[in-house]
């Protein structure tokens, strides 16, 4: 067993190292200054620089499909793209944290540290080729997240949501681990690359292996909130501080799906027809649950949470298409593009929610948006763009991402799922239009909490512009993603 750590490994993992170092900088400075916070803007800058550095390194060294540390980590297209999305979403979330009443102020350095650590966990998760590494990445991501939510300035709901998230997360982790143990036990392997060689006959004959796969799948379904494993999502999204919600809804979801994709897209691993069938049904239920429940929500964040569940359902369709496809890269690129689009719209929407929160325990209802268009026409327009894009109206990116996703699904013969998906998007129109109705068509005096939301406002406008325009030029983008996935 010859093994050395060489320069190549370090270069490949350099984004992770950079992120880790960046996460330590604000904390170190705080400790050196004698436990006194530096200016939040400085902390933010350091963190953003760290993210940019990580992204730069990821682009420079990753994406070629090289493995590091004896095939424990892989830096291929999925890693590259979802990593970039996660980093960008993390950056967006950081900007929101910087200006949200529930997160700014004291302990900002610690928060930044935890956020960057969470992103670090995500990068591990998406690059992991070993089930153990997947577990470690998952835990690093999640544990940081629990702590982040728990340390919100808001004391009641965020604590509750942190605790719920923690217990359920750990519960799901245990299931996930049990699944790993079955896989390990029945195949003697935890490395996905090596598993691939033996999975076909294992999946056919070995019930234990199949159960292991199911348990692992359930663990992922929990993370990406597929019904009926979704129940934590609305509560946690609502209770957590908005920037964290944005972070969860985007970065966490993106990387969980990426890891899920890595397992599912390896066709032999889910060679089981029955698992495939049940996942179809789960997708169906998820779309329906998310959309119908969202119709009745008044709380804006909760509504977006249910919408996030619904979008998980759509994404699962794409994932399944990728799973059965002989040409997995097409559907997979569709999924990744959808994740990108979804992150863009969701960060933007939550940014607006964040902007409107006046205190750390301000819970924003849809009706509180009344009259917003009159006071802040530009922001209202941006929010409308997000909502319409989430609903899949052309020419926004939301339409094109749905188009690619369902195109892949139809291409793989999952027509009924595509039909179900588009019908559900009709249901979703109802609740996506509601904020617009309230903003534009009702009298009221909604406004952003105060003027100092410069960075958030810029985030909103940038994401809105991208949401509106990137869809039209999405062809080359998608081609790029697809090319890197082969």
């Amino acid at each position, binding site marked *: 067993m010859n093994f050395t750590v060489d320069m190549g490994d370090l270069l490949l993992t350099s984004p992770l190292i950079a992120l880790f170092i960046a996460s330590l900088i604000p904390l170190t400075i705080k400790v050196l200054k004698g436990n006194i916070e530096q200016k939040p803007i400085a902390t933010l800058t350091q963190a953003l620089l760290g993210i940019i550095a990580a992204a730069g390194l990821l682009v420079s060294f990753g994406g070629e499909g090289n493995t590091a540390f004896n095939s424990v980590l892989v830096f291929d297209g999925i890693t590259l793209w979802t990593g970039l999305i996660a980093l960008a979403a993390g950056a967006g979330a950081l900007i929101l944290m910087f200006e949200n009443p529930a997160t700014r102020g004291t302990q900002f350095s610690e928060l930044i540290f935890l956020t960057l650590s969470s992103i670090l966990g995500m990068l591990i998760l998406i690059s992991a080729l070993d089930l153990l590494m997947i577990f470690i990445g998952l835990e690093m991501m999640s544990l940081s997240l629990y702590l982040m939510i728990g340390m919100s300035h808001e004391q009641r709901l965020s604590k509750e949501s942190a605790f719920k998230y923690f217990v359920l997360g750990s519960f799901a982790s245990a299931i996930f681990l049990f699944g790993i143990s079955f896989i390990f036990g029945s195949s003697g392997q935890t490395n996905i690359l090596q598993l691939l060689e033996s999975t076909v006959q294992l999946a056919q004959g070995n019930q234990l292996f199949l159960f292991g796969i199911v348990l692992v799948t359930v663990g992922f379904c929990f993370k990406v909130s597929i019904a009926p494993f979704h129940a934590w999502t609305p509560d946690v999204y609502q209770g957590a501080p908005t920037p964290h919600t944005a972070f969860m809804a985007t970065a966490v979801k993106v990387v969980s799906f990426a890891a899920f994709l890595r397992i599912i897209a390896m066709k032999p691993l889910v060679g089981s027809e029955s698992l495939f069938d049940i996942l179809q049904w789960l997708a169906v239920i998820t779309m329906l649950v998310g959309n119908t429940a969202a119709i009745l929500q008044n709380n804006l964040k909760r509504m977006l949470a249910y919408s996030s569940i619904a979008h998980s359902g759509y994404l699962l369709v794409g994932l399944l298409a990728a799973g059965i496809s002989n040409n997995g890269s097409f559907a997979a690129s569709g999924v990744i593009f959808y994740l990108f689009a979804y992150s863009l719209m969701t960060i933007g929407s939550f940014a607006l929610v964040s902007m409107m929160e006046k205190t750390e325990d301000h819970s924003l209802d849809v009706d509180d948006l009344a009259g917003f268009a009159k006071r802040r*026409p530009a922001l209202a327009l941006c929010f409308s763009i997000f909502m*319409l894009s989430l609903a899949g*109206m*052309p*020419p926004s990116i939301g*339409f094109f991402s749905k*188009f690619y996703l*369902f*195109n892949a699904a*139809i*291409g793989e013969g999952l*027509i009924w799922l*595509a*039909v179900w998906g*588009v*019908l559900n*998007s*009709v249901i979703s*129109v*109802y609740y996506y*239009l509601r904020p*617009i*109705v309230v903003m*534009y*068509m009702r009298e009221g005096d909604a406004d952003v909490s105060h003027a100092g939301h410069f960075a958030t406002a810029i985030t909103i406008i940038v994401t809105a512009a991208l949401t509106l325009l990137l869809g039209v030029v*999405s*062809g*080359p983008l*998608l*081609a790029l993603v*697809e090319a890197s996935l082969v």
Partner: protein
Amino acid sequence: MILSTLVFLPVLFALILALWPQKNMIRPMALVFSLIHFAVGLIVFQDFDTSTAQLQFVEKHMWIEKFGIQYFLAMDGISFWLVQLTTFLAPLIILASWNSISEKVRGFHICFFILQSAMLGSFLAFDAILFYVFWELSLIPMYFIVGIWGGSRRIYATLKFFIYTMAGSVLMLVAIIYMMYLTQQAFGQMSSNLLDFYKLSIPFIGSDFFSMQTLLFFAFALAFAIKVPLFPLHTWLPDAHVEAPTPGSVVLAGVMLKMGTFCYMRWVLPLFPEASEYWAWIFIMLGVIGIIYGALVAMVQPDIKKLVAYSSVSHMGYIIIGLFVMNHQGLQGGLYQMLNHGISTGALFILIGMIYERTHSREISQYGGLASVLPNFTIFFFIITLSSIAVPLTNGFVGEFLILLGVYKASPWAAGFAVTGVVLGAAYMLWMFKRVFYGEKGPLVADEKHPLIDLNVREFVILVPFVIMVFVMGIFPNHFLKYSEASIDYLVKNKSSYQLTIKGEQ
């Protein structure tokens, strides 16, 4: 470039309006813009070749390589007049909104121009995805127009409109994607080019409802049926019309509904020839029911606008039956009736808007004796009424006559039932006319405190073009029909092997 200019000029206008600093200049600027747009639209007259069914003014660029999605705009005889109608109505609508839209003026005009763009795009797109983008995009500004500037139940109405229409069109998206895969099977390369779609021969088994062509046919037809709207999918229309502000109603009736019928001609009939022939009876039946049903329900409406809205259901029923009999007279008449309906119903909504501005009521029972108070208004209203009930030498007659003739050729019974619409149409319109304009003065008309003032210059300027069009189209229909003649002829004669080509290409 002319078609791109035509489609995207309004977007440019909208941008200029969005950024223009002075608020009081918005209206005049919008008016000038719309006139410019109209003038640009007239350019195509010069080069349009009426002798061919081929596509003209083609603009074709690859958009999304992977799926063969193209930016493909083109015009042929079927879309020619609808494009003209769209640009023709615009300045009139802006003039009509002069008083009725009093707040958020800028926003209204931005919405309106984007709507223009979307509607023109869906008339001119020859790529399925491009078309779908425009088609769906047109919902958004309309949604805002009804929702923001509408009446008291505007939110209900606009949501109903949006969700109904969207519900229909999403299945079409699935069908489009499916057809893209069919092109991949057939030609090796995926494509959403409509011309490639035309080349497909999709298997059809009449007795099997789940045969591919039937399913695709219904996926498309449903989307358009809701837009038309075809009985029994029409209930969004009265609500949307009643709640919409005047200009919104005019666009809705004038152009948006035509998108549905137009798309039957552009998409459904040529793409699914066997299915549309096999299932034509359903559409003819629903169309006939729509004619009678719309007319009967219109008759008992207490609200003028709702009456006209239901009359739209009735009129659109004519168009549907005209299209589905698939002969020259039916199709030409259907196309002509689209224009007629745009003119006459558009004008009716404008007229109702004018009277609504004066009295703030649309209750028929509140009126009466208007003719002696507002004689000029009455004359215009009467002329448009005549057009609506298809009195000869007005535009309506030509359309209805051709449709009914075409329908009779194909299905005498359907024509027999449809003809009752001629009687009922006259009944509801004239009854309404009598109750509103004749008789003793109603409470609103006799109100001493708010004396009603007859048409002003602006309103004359709005109405005169309509009246001119009513008679020009009624007396010289050939000048209009000749533009679509070649295309219709091609459609009728090659319905099962419909393969349009691009002019100047082999």
